[in-house]
């Protein structure tokens, strides 16, 4: 069970999907028609062009999500070492979470988390 088996698995996976695609290319006669490009039971057909300007609110939500995403990632190494370092690590993470909680309160007060 060395790393060679990992390579063998990757090659087998690529070959498996590649051969399946190749067989379907060879066996099937390719035809194109209008129905093929439509979304089948995947919601309504789109109206108008899809290259439109989206609401800036999506960006705001994504940015706030990103910040709390990174905050949670900092919690993982903290959780591993907090027992070894002791209460200093607890104080450090409390300050960290407090500062970020102030940001959350600001966003909440400003109504940035409400959709309009």
């Amino acid at each position, binding site marked *: 069970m*060395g*790393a*060679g088996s*990992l*390579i063998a698995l990757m090659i087998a996976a690529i070959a498996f999907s590649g051969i399946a695609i190749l067989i379907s290319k060879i066996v099937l006669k390719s035809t194109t028609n209008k129905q093929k490009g439509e979304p089948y039971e995947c919601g309504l057909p789109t109206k108008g*062009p899809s*290259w*439109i*300007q*989206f609401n*800036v*609110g*999506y*960006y*705001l939500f*994504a*940015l*706030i*999500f*990103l*910040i709390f*995403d*990174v*905050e949670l*990632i*900092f919690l*993982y*190494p*903290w959780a*591993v*070492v*907090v027992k*070894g*370092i002791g209460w*200093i*690590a607890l104080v*450090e*993470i409390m*300050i*960290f979470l407090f*500062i*970020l909680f*102030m*940001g*959350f309160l*600001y*966003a909440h007060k*400003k*109504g*940035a988390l409400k959709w309009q």
Partner: protein
Amino acid sequence: MSTSEILFWFLSVLALFSAVMVLVSKNPVHSVLWLIVVFFSISGHYLLLNAQFLAIVNIIVYAGAIMVLFLFVIMLMNLNRESEPQKNVWMKLFGVISGGLLLTIFVSAFRSSADIFDKTAQLNDGDVGLIKNLGKVLFDQYAFPFEISSVLFLSAMVGAVVIGKKE
């Protein structure tokens, strides 16, 4: 060639090829999708260097969250075929200048750091990127920069709220 070397060369070729495809794709959404491939191959490199935590963080933050921001920027820019703003010659000129400056910095940085030549990375047995060592360094030695990073997050969040709520 050992297995690590095969994987290294495969991932390097994949990363470079996808990075070139990011640049040459006509559709900006395709560029973003190729950039995801770049991030995943770089995560593979982290795994080869025995830095599992960095690999997972790279996938979660870059391939997950940063990519969403990139997609939203593309969707906010309104890249219609008719009103595409990339026709400006000055824009292209400034792009070439800034890219060239970045290349100069890279070349000079690599030229001056002669001690990285003839050195190999610690494959499989390095322990710098393990989560425990990272946590020890972060919460013991670099505790103050860690607290400063929370102020950075706070300023990013406040900036986003101020700009996004201006209407």
